[in-house]
C-alpha cells in the first residue's frame, strides 16, 4: 500500500466526522437562525416620543397600520431639537426596509437634504406636526393641525378673558418650528379687529422650556399690566406656566396654551392654565398612516391635509372641549 493511500484512509474518517459534527451543530443552531416572517413596516419618527400628544398620535397610527397588516416602527429623539438623532433614526429605519416614512420634523430646514434623498428614491414621506419646506408632490405630503385656526381660537379666547381690551403677549415663536410663526401670525391678524387689545411682545422659546420660562419672566417684569399670554407650543406653555407660578401671577395673567402635550391637560384641570388650544393627534397619526398606505399601494400621496383644532377650558375640575368656539 502506498503512503498516499494510507493517508487518504486516515483522513477520510476525520472528514466524515467533521461533516457529522457540522451537521449536528447546524441542527442545534437551526431554530435560532430561523427568523419568523414579519409584517411590512412604516417608520414614524416624531420630534420626540413619550408625551401625551405623541402617544395619541402613535395610537392612531397603530390602529390604521394594524388594519392593513402593517407594523409601525415608532421612535424619536429624546430632545425635540435633536436634528442629528432624528436623521439617524430615519436613515436607519429606511435602511432596514421601511416602506414609508412619517416625520414630525425637529427642524424643517435641516431635514431638507435627507427628505429630498428619500423622495428621489420614491420613498413616500409624510410630515406631521408641521409642513415641509419643499413643495409637496407624489412622494411628499403633510397631515398637520390647522395652524391658522390655532391663532384664531386663541385670539377669540383672549377677547373673552381680557373683555376686549388690554395688553397681551406671545411666547414661543421659533423660526425652526414654522407652526409657531403661523399660530402667532394668525393670532395677531385676528386681534387686529379688536384695536383695544394690544399685542405688546413676541418672545422666543418654542422647544426650550427654560427659554420660554425666562422670556415669560422678562415679559411679566416689563409689562406689569399684561392681561394674557398666548404660548404657541407645548414647551412654551410649560415654560410660561412655570414662570407665572414662580412670579405668583397665574391668577392675574391668563395663559392660553397650545397642544395637549406633556402634562398640560392635568395643569388645565388644576387651574394652572386658562385654556389650551389643541389638535386631535390621534387623527393626525391615523391619517398620516392612511396616506402612507395609499402611497405604498402605488397611488400618489394626497395633497396636504389639515386637522381641525379645538379649545379646552375648565369648568370646575372638568375639561370642556369646544370644537367651534
Amino acid at each position, binding site marked *: 500500500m502506498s503512503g498516499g493511500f494510507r493517508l487518504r484512509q486516515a483522513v*477520510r*474518517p476525520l472528514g*466524515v*466526522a*467533521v*461533516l*457529522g*459534527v*457540522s*451537521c*449536528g*451543530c447546524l*441542527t*442545534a*443552531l437551526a431554530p*435560532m437562525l430561523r427568523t419568523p416572517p414579519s409584517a411590512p413596516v412604516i417608520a414614524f419618527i416624531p420630534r*420626540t*416620543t*413619550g408625551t401625551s400628544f405623541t*402617544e395619541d398620535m*402613535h395610537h392612531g397610527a*397603530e390602529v390604521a397600520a394594524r388594519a392593513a397588516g402593517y407594523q409601525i*416602527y*415608532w*421612535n*424619536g*429623539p*429624546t*430632545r425635540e431639537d435633536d436634528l442629528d*438623532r432624528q436623521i439617524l*433614526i430615519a436613515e436607519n429605519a429606511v435602511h432596514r426596509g421601511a416602506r414609508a416614512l412619517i416625520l414630525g420634523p425637529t427642524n424643517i430646514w435641516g431635514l431638507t437634504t435627507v427628505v429630498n434623498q428619500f423622495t428621489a428614491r420614491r420613498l413616500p414621506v409624510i410630515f406631521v406636526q408641521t409642513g415641509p419646506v419643499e413643495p409637496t408632490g407624489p412622494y411628499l405630503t403633510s397631515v398637520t393641525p390647522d395652524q391658522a385656526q390655532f391663532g384664531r381660537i386663541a385670539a377669540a379666547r383672549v377677547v373673552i378673558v381680557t373683555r376686549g381690551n388690554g395688553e397681551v403677549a406671545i411666547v414661543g415663536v421659533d423660526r425652526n418650528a414654522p407652526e409657531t410663526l403661523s399660530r402667532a401670525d394668525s393670532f395677531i391678524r385676528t386681534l387686529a379687529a379688536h384695536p383695544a387689545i394690544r399685542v405688546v411682545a413676541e418672545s422666543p422659546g418654542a422647544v426650550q422650556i427654560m427659554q420660554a420660562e425666562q422670556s415669560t419672566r422678562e415679559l411679566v417684569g416689563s409689562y406689569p399690566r399684561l392681561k394674557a399670554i398666548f404660548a404657541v407650543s407645548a414647551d412654551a406653555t410649560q415654560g410660561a406656566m412655570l414662570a407665572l407660578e414662580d412670579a405668583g401671577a397665574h391668577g392675574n395673567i391668563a395663559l392660553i396654551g397650545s397642544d395637549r402635550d406633556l*402634562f398640560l391637560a*392635568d395643569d388645565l384641570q388644576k387651574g394652572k392654565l386658562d385654556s389650551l388650544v389643541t389638535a386631535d393627534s390621534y387623527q393626525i397619526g391615523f391619517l398620516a398612516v392612511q396616506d402612507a398606505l395609499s402611497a405604498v399601494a402605488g397611488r400618489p400621496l394626497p395633497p396636504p391635509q389639515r386637522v381641525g383644532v379645538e379649545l379646552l377650558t375648565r369648568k370646575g375640575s372638568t375639561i370642556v372641549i369646544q370644537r367651534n368656539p
Partner: protein
Amino acid sequence: MMRRLIRDLLVFAIAACAGLLVTTAVIRVLHSPTRGLPYHDHFADGDASGWVAYDGNWTVQSGAMVNESNERGAKLITGSTYWTDYAMDADLALSSTGEAGIIARVSDAEPGVDSYKGIYIGLRVRDESLVVGEADYGWGELAVVALPQPIIPNVWYHIHLELRGCELKVLTWRDGNRDVIRLSHGLSPCFRQGKIGLRSYDSGGQWKNIRVVALRGNAGE
C-alpha cells in the same frame, strides 16, 4: 467497500450526535436564565464596562452611577437577555423634577425615549408617585401609587422589584424612612425575559447598589 461505507455512516452519526449534544449544551448554558446571577454592581471600582448607554450622560462618581442629562428616556442597560424571573434592588436619587427608576426584562433597546421592550418602575416628581409602566416602542402606564410624602431631590430611595412569570411586586421606601410603599400588579400579556437597566426621564439621577437574584418557582406554572 461496504464495510467502509458502514464505518463512515457510523462515524458520521456518532459525530453528528456529539455535535448536536455539545452545541445544545453550550446553547443551554449561554441561554440559561440564571447565567450571571446573582448579579451586583456597587460601582465602587469605577468600572462600568458591563453597561451599555442609550442616550444620557453616564459616569461613575463616588460609588454611584450618575446620569447628568435630563433628556427624556436615557437608559443604561446590563445583564442577560435570558434572565426570566428575578428580584432586583437599587438605590436611586433624582436630581431634578422629572422621573427616574429601573427597567427590567429589557430587550431590543435602542436610543430613544421608550425605545425598548420591558417594564419600567420609577419615582415621578410630577405627581409624587411610584409609577409602573410597560414600554414597547411606546408607553403604557400600568399602575400609579401616590407617595405619602413629596420626593426629595438628591435623597436616596430604595426600589425592590420581583418579577415571577407575569406577576410583579414592587416595594419602595425613602432612605431612613420606615414607610414602605407596596405594589402588586398582574401583567397580561407580559415580557418574559430580558436584561435590567437604569432609566431617567426629564431628570438626571444617581443609582447605586444594583442587585439581581434569580427567583425560584414560577407564578405562571
